[in-house]
């Protein structure tokens, strides 16, 4: 995998996302793209100096057929607010049928994610060919705007526990509310906290 288009953010991102206010929220987007079409298309968008927001980290893979659903899960785990998966148009796959296989898998996975409550609006699937720099710019800009409106995906990022106070922002000790039985460490019983959502999950869309 290689990374291009390192975005220039205004200011260093704080290690703790919890302070991200929606007003100044810059979504973090991870894009998994195929090497042959979309990556080249993204490159074209860059060299054509098309206007594009800089929130996207591109991860290049040989083919959309190589893009496993766990990549998307990992992106959300590690702080992505949205994910783009993009590759060659149907019939254009460098490996003949990788994108067809991917289309089926993501058709299912998108529904699965949605059923488990991950709003599919956080995901963009697109076909962007090597010559479609403009389309790539549109895909990126539209995704960013959509995800910006949805707000940070803190409900997923926080699944493994709330960050401890600001003086120790990296340490995560507590089981989150609603975890199995709760640990004795939990300061208060949070058993039913999850059921008090939806408003509490921060994923209102």
């Amino acid at each position, binding site marked *: 995998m290689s990374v291009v288009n390192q975005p220039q953010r205004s200011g260093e991102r704080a290690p703790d996302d919890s302070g991200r206010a929606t007003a100044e929220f810059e979504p973090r987007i991870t894009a998994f793209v195929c090497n042959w079409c979309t990556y080249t298309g993204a490159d074209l968008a860059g060299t054509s100096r098309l206007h594009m927001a800089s929130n996207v980290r591109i991860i290049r893979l040989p083919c959309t057929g190589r893009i496993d659903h766990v990549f998307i899960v990992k992106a959300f785990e*590690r702080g992505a607010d949205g994910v783009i998966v993009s590759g060659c148009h149907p019939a254009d796959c460098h490996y003949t049928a990788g994108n067809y296989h991917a289309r089926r898998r993501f058709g299912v996975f998108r529904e699965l994610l949605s059923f488990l409550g991950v709003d599919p609006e956080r995901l963009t699937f697109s076909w962007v060919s090597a010559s479609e720099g403009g389309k790539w710019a549109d895909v990126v800009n539209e995704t960013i705007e959509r995800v910006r409106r949805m707000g940070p995906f803190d409900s997923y990022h926080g699944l493994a526990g709330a960050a401890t106070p600001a003086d120790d922002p*990296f340490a995560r*000790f507590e*089981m989150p509310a609603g975890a199995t039985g*709760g*640990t004795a*460490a939990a300061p208060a019983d949070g058993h039913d906290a999850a059921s008090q959502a939806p408003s509490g999950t921060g994923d209102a869309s």
Partner: protein
Amino acid sequence: MSERALLLTHDGLATLVEELAAAGTPAVAPAWAGDAGRAAGASAAARETEYRTVSGAAELAFGERLPRLSLKQFFLPPTEVLFSWRRVGGGVELIPPPTDFAAQVVLGARPCDAAALPIVDKVMNWDYADELWNARRAATTVFSLACGVEDDSCFCSAVFLEPAAARGSDGRLTPVDGGYLVETFSDKGEAFVAAHRESFTDLPAGAGGEVLAVQAESFRATARERVAGNLAVDHGRLRDWLDHHFDDPFWAGLGPRCNGCGVCASVCPTCHCFDIVDEPESVGRGVRRRNWDTCQTCVFTLHASGHNPRQDQNARFRQRVEHKFLVYPLKFGDVLCTGCGRCSRACPTGQDLAEILADIDARAAIDAGAGAVGDEGAADEAAS
């Protein structure tokens, strides 16, 4: 410990639970797992209970089905942080987890779950003291609820316990008319009662109190008698048999049915094996956790080279039985089992530990040239 037993009326219990909730002291108790269980005429499957922190008496499921998971999760959580780390400059900084746990109380623990705590204490303090386990133990006061025996899979009396065993409990509640007779067995239990004295009432003086005491003893005696019929084994010869029959074809008869899922270990109050994993949280920082693990999975003993000392489920199932009834006894004295029967009830394929123990005991008896102990009928029935 206590000079005189007290009474905890149903109202007193409700007050106590609310008081603890108001004070922010977690009160862990068997509670309905879902709303469905509480409903009149709920199906057996819906009447699931679990230990959890409760805030009101309506949640309590005292004297109902055995909670799905044992009490161990409150002392050895399914996952917990051992430390967190981050890169600082060229070095690494480690941050230990907090161990100053707030006081909590368990109300209505099954005696078989409470008894597991001192059993696992021995492992957790074998030359090296496990601070996290010990700190949670120190912070927790355990009141058990004398058990009326769940069903035929219970066999606490076959593993040195009984349905009202005091082991591992700081105090005990026994059901009587109007509430529970309360006894305390430790300073911690005593201190808890003293701190919440207004929720407890004195036993009526004279005959009224004696009636309740007799009721409590009768409750315990009935349960004792009932569970004693489920299983009886001679642990000495059982251990000898295990020690000398590592390669016995007996094990190949047990492995095929086993799914290798380790549900038995998840639900077991004494299974304490764990995995240690690193989880990156971001670039340059992460946590090390320990997670429940089980000897029933193929990767448990798998070497990085690909060599696996326990190649199949026959070997892995044997390990579970041997750990409980041979390895632990040789190291620490008693057995790594409290007879709660959860493994048998939870097993998706019907593997039954009481049956297996009866079977081994019968074989051991033949080896030893003696008859089976206790109720032969029960052992034979279970072994059939």
